[in-house]
């Protein structure tokens, strides 16, 4: 595979400012382009912290976290924000949408802060609105719901819109933080299926955090973050 991996983590140590104890220790971790990975781990194991580190919102205390070969710590805050907008789509556990905006507008917002993603969406579909419709279609949100305001969508629908927003303009990496935890089983399966298909189609790497072992068969690689009492953690252990 040519080019640097999408994500490259080396000897990462992280602790919050003014607190001595490490929240997260991770010796080596990589995500290759287009790869799909399930990240498992008990609550408090630092999964959300890791996602923030990968997205460049938090910075490593020691070690390196690189996105496409570029260490988050070595670039200016404004550049970090731009790189995040350009290369990463993010799906939260819930409350992903701006409630007063329509589903379509929420999706369009996904490329609003990135020129390259806007250009890609325009290049592919001619207009941002068309690109958003396409992404919503891929996430199987019925067209009758596209003009509905975010706050009026069901939780399952909101997650679909959030995924469509992460997909628009084809970022290199989608980070999803327990996106299915608020969904029941049939909804969860449909959502995961649509998300995997859509990210494959868009050529995005996907890192999905979940403690739900039922999802493991869908992922080529599963990674477990181990928690030890006292806050120190061991590195990532390949699950299989």
């Amino acid at each position, binding site marked *: 595979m040519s080019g640097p991996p999408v994500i490259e983590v080396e000897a990462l140590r992280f602790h919050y400012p003014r607190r001595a104890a490490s929240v997260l220790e991770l010796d080596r971790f990589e995500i290759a382009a287009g790869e799909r990975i399930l990240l498992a781990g008990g609550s408090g194991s630092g999964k959300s912290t890791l996602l923030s580190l990968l997205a460049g919102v938090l910075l490593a205390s020691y070690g390196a976290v690189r996105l496409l070969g570029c260490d988050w710590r070595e670039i200016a*805050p404004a550049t970090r924000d731009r790189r995040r*907008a350009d290369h990463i789509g993010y799906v939260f556990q819930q409350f992903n949408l701006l409630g*007063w905006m329509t589903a379509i507008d929420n999706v369009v917002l996904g490329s609003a802060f990135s020129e390259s993603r806007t250009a890609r969406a325009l290049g592919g579909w001619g207009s941002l609105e068309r690109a958003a419709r396409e992404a919503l279609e891929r996430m199987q949100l019925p067209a009758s719901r596209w003009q509905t305001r975010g706050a009026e969508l069901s939780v399952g629908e909101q997650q679909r819109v959030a995924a469509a927003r992460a997909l628009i303009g084809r970022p290199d990496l989608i980070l999803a933080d327990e996106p299915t935890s608020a969904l029941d089983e049939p909804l969860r399966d449909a959502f995961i299926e649509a998300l995997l298909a859509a990210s494959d189609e868009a050529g995005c790497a996907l890192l999905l955090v979940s403690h739900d072992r039922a999802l493991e068969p869908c992922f080529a690689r599963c990674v477990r973050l181990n928690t030890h009492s006292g806050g120190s953690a061991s590195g990532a252990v390949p699950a299989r």
Partner: protein
Amino acid sequence: MSSVILRLAWASALNRRLPLALMVAAIALSTAILVSTERLREGLRAGFSEALSGTDLVVGARSHPVQVMLSTLFHLGHPAQNVSLAALEGIASLPQVKWLVPVALGDTYRGMPVVATNTDYFRWVRTGESRPLVFAQGRAFSDGPPQEGRFEAVLGATVATRFALKRGDIITLAHGSGAIGELVHDDQPIRVAGVLDGTGTPIDRSVLISLEAFEALHAGWVGGLPPRVGQLPGLRQAAPPSTMSAPPEARRPVSVTAALVGLHSRAQVFNMQRQIERPGPEPLTAVLPGVALDELWRVISRGEDLLRLTGLLVGLTAIGGLIATILAGLEARRRELAVLRALGAAPRTLFALVIAESSIANALGIVLGLAASVLGVGLLSPWLRTNFGIESSSTWLTMQQGALLALVFGAGLLASLLPAWRAMRLTLADGLAPPH
């Protein structure tokens, strides 16, 4: 990028439209107060200054200069004493004096002041930027004996339009303010000889007659009561010997209220003032209208300042409320800020977002207030003109008003730094994981 921020700010503001609308209304109210006050103030001042043009001195009986000026030029208040025509003729004969126009006041026509003077008035009086009086129809009244059995009058523009009068109409004047119906000079109807063009000064609201007409109207009056007083109900006083049957004579009054004086050279004005006010058989006051007007404004400006301060305070209170509304909303919006952050919004972008939101509300309030003020003053201006002679300023937005509005907007902008800064701090502290 900035269009994204504006769109987001607008959508976000719409989402909280009720509390924001109340704040916008409060800002609009303060803007309306500020701008309307300024407009009326400027209109009032401009109108007053316009009426002064060309008159170097106003001479009246010994009194306060402001009172002499107000009663003579603006027909406000009642002069306490008269000045004799003989004394005025003495002044008129001085070499420095170019012209002198006597003015007698006290009668009204349906609430409009009657100004008794002579035809020199039309020759010398100037308004605005030295504009002479122009007749819209007809001509000046004639001095001396009545024409074709009647005295004549010239009407100001407002009087003519308000009472639908034209050349040739016959009117009846009233004594004093005209509030008491009985005291009308219906024994001496007057014919309208002409109507003046509008000037934007108190002249528009006045009825001009000759001194001879004025004297004839009051012939036989004693102590401010007409000779027919015996006919008034409730008074059993016998009527004085009737002089009524005598035909009107062309007599000039012995004394008048004041005189307008023009000098050959403005430089002599202080000299003349001293000369006129020098102790003599008849104590006189000579007023420089501009100086007296300045004195008046000094008194009035306190009230104006208070009104302006009220407007500013309303504005500041409204801005305080606006900021509190936005601040209170921020806690609930931490989720939203985290989402925007995950989308790649920089903390300073979110800072700008909050600033944009409050600026939109602020600007909206100011625009609405401005519109309300323009509309309100516009609707009221005919009423203000006919009833108070105040010409409301027609300029859309003067420098001074602009400065006040900029002050309101600037204060809003400054105050919105607080919630914007707070939004940025929350963003940085929460990262992608705000409390649920």
